């Protein structure tokens, strides 16, 4: 692909959402709702069209020169050595992310036209949504560390706006701030990683090359010895950045609170795009990660751990959006596990399929909430299937895909993932991780169909479901499209298809040039499903067990769910109920002490020590004045006495000095 073509693609893809956001921000208002809706959705649609065209052109081009890096403008030149420039790369990895972000984004924008009908902040909403898509694309296209960090922060800021969209709700405001602070931590980790990279990149002939552009870094990646401490530190910091963004174990507490935002926001940000940025980052920096085996192991373990924990918590949640949020955290955990093991293509594959069915679940939940007039507690719902027929059916497809039932999208990507895990997971814990992965399949099946059964099946718990009405058409169309996609996406992306001259290889082969051409570490080749048959069979079986169990518990209610729950030891249910107490832990461990130190500074240090010595000087001079004042007693005899005394002293000193 030619430089000129790529530059135009990059500028168009970035330009459309930015212009849409600016127009909506400047001229949008509740009155001109029509204009706002059109501008909002069209800009994302245009971006999707441009990226589709780019995909087609890329497919026609020979697989060798599909990755093209373009320089937009010089950011900062330091005396000829370090010159930082805005560079964008369009290669297989970023085109996939482009398509996912703009495609799913477009469907969600169409959906939110209906969802935000009676919300007067619609202009602000679409402005923020467009700005979010712009920053996500900015991040994905980044080919320069500075460009990447800026995109990273822009995504954090736009998610801050969107989570805190209903700014009158204190809980939303707090959730937005919490999300932003966690992202800033990830951002700082990324910045320090960038420093480490810049100061350690050596050209083959051993001279320091100070450049922040990723192609040159990866070209000279040989300068980082395999398993050396610098590479380990760099990858650890990159991993922290990824965990912050993808809500993985240490920095995951912001994701459930982020459900305070409107449902389309949750769908776009917390299902399809933002949380996957962490997976993309690790995939993009795979040459470095391949050289840091310890970190890869760590990443895989954290991925599986988070996934398992989220699965347990999801089982006990009562808010419909929080259940899906925890399921997102669990699935992202699987992706992190995949890229942690070096199965970058498998991770990306699961990312794509997950984007479809998770967005579908969120939009379905949106329909339910819309129908129940903003009621999110599933205990109040029940038997909605009769009223919301289309939503119920697409929600079912989504749940099937999520829990990995064969022939649905989830099954292809998840089993591919776990299949790879069986054969060459990290070090000696590979089998253990695989077993936990398979247990996660059970958990996924359980909570997916628990949700479906409670919300749509059974008889209504309260009178309110009776009043529910099916969502308007504009909200149903995206849901149906997504249902179709999550049904056939696995199959469609799996089998190589040829349209005339355009040969669409299967997903992994399409991505393989990105992940093989540069890495000189252990070749991360993708096993065909064949070699992982055993893994796949075990995985599918566990999923079916999960689904069956869920249907028994919540559909036919043989052993009623509550009785089963009572038999499970109390501390597990409590743990699950209170989200493993992480919120309280972080609050006590970090937030409160920092605030205490700050208060201590203000109350004690500032007035006493800092101000103290300045005021002290003043007070000291006053005291000196007071002590000397009585000498002016006004009595002549005192004055004479002083004279005599000092005269005497004077004489003694003179004589003393002279005599000695």
């Amino acid at each position, binding site marked *: 692909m030619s430089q000129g073509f790529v530059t135009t693609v990059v500028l168009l893809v970035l330009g459309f959402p930015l212009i849409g956001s600016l127009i909506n921000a400047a001229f949008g208002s509740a009155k001109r709702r029509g204009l706002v809706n059109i501008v909002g959705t069209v800009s994302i649609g245009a971006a999707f069209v441009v990226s589709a065209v780019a995909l087609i052109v890329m497919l026609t081009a020979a697989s060798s020169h599909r990755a093209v890096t373009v320089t937009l403008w010089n*950011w900062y030149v330091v005396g000829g050595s370090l010159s930082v420039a805005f560079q964008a790369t369009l290669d297989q990895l970023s085109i996939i992310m482009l398509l996912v972000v703009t495609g799913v984004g477009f469907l969600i924008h169409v959906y939110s036209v209906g969802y935000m009908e009676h919300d007067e902040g619609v202009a602000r909403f679409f402005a923020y949504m467009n700005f979010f898509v712009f920053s996500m694309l900015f991040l994905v296209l980044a080919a320069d560390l500075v460009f990447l960090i800026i995109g990273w922060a822009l995504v954090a800021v736009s998610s801050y706006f969107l989570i*805190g969209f209903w700014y009158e709700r204190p809980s939303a405001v707090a959730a937005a701030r919490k999300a932003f602070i966690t992202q800033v931590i990830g*951002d700082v980790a990324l910045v*320090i990683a960038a*420093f480490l990279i810049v100061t350690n990149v050596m050209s083959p002939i051993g001279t320091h090359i100070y450049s922040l552009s990723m192609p040159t870094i990866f070209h000279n990646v040989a300068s980082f010895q395999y398993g050396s401490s610098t590479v380990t530190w760099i990858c650890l910091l990159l991993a922290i950045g990824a965990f912050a963004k993808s809500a993985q174990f240490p920095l995951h507490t912001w994701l459930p609170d982020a459900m305070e935002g409107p449902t389309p926001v949750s769908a776009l940000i917390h299902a399809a795009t933002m949380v996957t940025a962490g997976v993309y980052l690790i995939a993009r920096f795979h040459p470095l990660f391949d050289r840091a085996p310890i970190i890869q192991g760590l990443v895989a373990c954290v991925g599986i751990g988070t996934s398992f924990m989220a699965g347990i918590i999801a089982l006990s949640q009562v808010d419909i959006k929080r259940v899906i949020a925890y399921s997102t955290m669990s699935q992202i955990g699987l992706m992190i596990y995949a890229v942690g093991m070096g199965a970058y293509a498998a991770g990306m594959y699961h990312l794509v399929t997950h984007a479809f069915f998770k967005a579908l679940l969120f939009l379905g939940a949106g329909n339910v909430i819309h129908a129940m007039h903003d009621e999110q507690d599933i205990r109040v719902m029940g038997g909605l299937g009769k009223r919301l027929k289309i939503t119920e059916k697409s929600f079912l497809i989504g749940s099937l895909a999520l829990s990995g039932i064969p022939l649905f999208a989830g099954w292809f990507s998840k089993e591919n993932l776990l299949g790879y895990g069986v054969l060459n997971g990290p070090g000696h814990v590979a089998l253990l991780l695989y077993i936990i992965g398979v247990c996660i399949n059970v958990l996924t099946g359980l909570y997916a169909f628990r949700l479906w059964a409670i919300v749509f099946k059974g008889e209504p718990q309260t009178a309110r479901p009776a009043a529910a009405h099916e969502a308007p058409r504009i909200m149903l169309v995206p849901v149906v499209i997504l249902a179709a996609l999550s049904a056939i996406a696995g199959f469609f992306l799996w089998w190589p298809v040829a349209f005339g001259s355009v040969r669409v290889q299967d997903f992994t082969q399409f991505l393989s040039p990105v992940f093989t051409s540069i890495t000189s570490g252990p070749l991360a080749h993708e096993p065909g499903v064949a070699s992982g048959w055993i893994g796949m069979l075990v995985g599918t079986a566990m999923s079916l067990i999960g689904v069956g169990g869920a249907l028994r518990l919540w559909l036919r209610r043989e052993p009623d769910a509550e009785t089963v729950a009572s038999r499970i030891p109390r501390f597990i249910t409590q743990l699950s109920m209170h989200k493993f107490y992480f919120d309280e832990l972080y609050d006590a461990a970090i937030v409160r002490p920092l605030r205490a130190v*700050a208060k201590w500074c203000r109350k004690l240090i500032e007035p006493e020590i800092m101000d103290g010595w300045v005021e002290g000087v003043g007070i000291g001079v006053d005291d000196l004045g007071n002590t000397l004042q009585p000498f002016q007693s006004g009595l002549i005899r005192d004055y004479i006495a002083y004279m005599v005394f000092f005269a005497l002293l004077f004489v003694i000193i003179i004589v003393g000095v002279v005599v000695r």
Partner: protein
Amino acid sequence: MTTGFSWLTLVLLVPILGAVAILCTPRREAWLIKTFALIAALATGFLVLGLLLNYSQAAATGSPISFKYAENVQWLPQIGASYRLGLDGLSAWFLALNAVVFLLGVVVALVRGVDRPKLFFGLLILTEAATAGVILSTDLLLFYLFWEGMLLPLYFLLSSFGNEKRQRATVKFIGYTVAWYLLMLLAIIYLHTQAGGSFSYDAIAARQTTGQSIITVPGFGWKLLTPDQFAFLAFALAFAIKVPLVPFHTWLPDLYESLPASGLTFFAGIVSKLGIYGFIRYAMTLFPKEMHDFQGLLLALALLSILYGAFMALQEVDIKRIVAYSSISHLGFISLGVFALTVIGLHGAILQVINHGIIIAALFIIMELIEVRTGTRDRSLMSGLEKAMPWMYFLFMITALAALGMPGLNGFAGEFMIMLGAFEASWVLAVIAGIGVVLAGWYMLRLHQGLMHDPLHKGTKEGMTDLRLRERWVLIPLCAAMVALGLFPNIVGQLDQGSVQQYMAASHTQPASAITQPTPLTHEVHA
């Protein structure tokens, strides 16, 4: 004698003439006073712009640091003091910031209105002349003259305009600073003797710092410092108070709390940055060995400023004091850039000086506009202003994000360079600075959200109007500058390439220092 036309003296003369014109006009014609003030500020602005534009063509003279538009007129030959002015890459940007910030001060005063225009504008323009003098002078005595002279108009300005606590704050500031500047005068005189009886910067820079015998306390035999180290400490102390670094900062919050926004724009904008200027121009180049000896201490102070400023900003209730402490934290960042003694760090510091000037001016203007509208400065009594003032929300959001160093805006550009420079000195610095960035995110968001989000606080007054057109058009150019500098920071980068190399070369004579040998990123390329 000077060869070409003495431009720099013109830069000094224009504000002085403006001030004189203002002082002559009778008090009644307030509009005439205002126009004179505006004309003076604009004229200086354009003059400086002209100087900057053909900066590269001008001839350069001078040994360690080459000065452009140099002027040298005998002033007091008996003691070797001469009226020498000069402009190099570093001071060019300080001069530009000086002109911009004072123009902003005048504009804000016009927009917000001020009760005694004659006194205010006269003193304001006079201060501009003084600060310009500090930046331009390359003769140490002249520098000290302007350095102390700056406090004169400032004293009257600070003590006659502002809220009820201004008297105490001004006395504390003036008394505090003047007391320590005398030490610097002592050091200057010492240097004068060392340089063989001349105050000129080149002569002093070229003085032989031969083996200094360590001064011992007579009778006790305690080993003190070498005279050069004493001189360096005197300079460093004077500049540390000006910057301010934390232990010497207590004058800043009281003063900033009592000053009106028009006063704050130029005070926080340029006056508090002359300390940084002093460190780079005088402390770093005249005392290279001592700078390396005390580098550890100075870096510790800079980090302390960052963290301490952030903690205090986190806890403060008065919104102006929050911004004051955030300014301390930012200045801590800038001094970290300077003390890291690396090329990147210095570039970042100069860039961040300009960014901070813009951000802090905008922040203080917004704080005053909010204070006027809600009638209080207490953060806990205000919330949910977004509904009433969407424009204020938008502009305040951009400024807050720039202040917390969000990548994409100008705060990040400077901080990235500084942290990279500090990282080169030692990785610990960058990590602690990173913690500073996280804290900055926290307190800046708390401030922005505290005021804007959450439901409307019952205490706030009803009928709050959004930003009027005039106020909006003061803040919009500032926000535009923030975004522009965030995406194109290279504008600042090109101009000071040459002089940054010279400063690094001048400060590298004895590189042995506690921190790892600071490797310049320039493969030892010397100008």
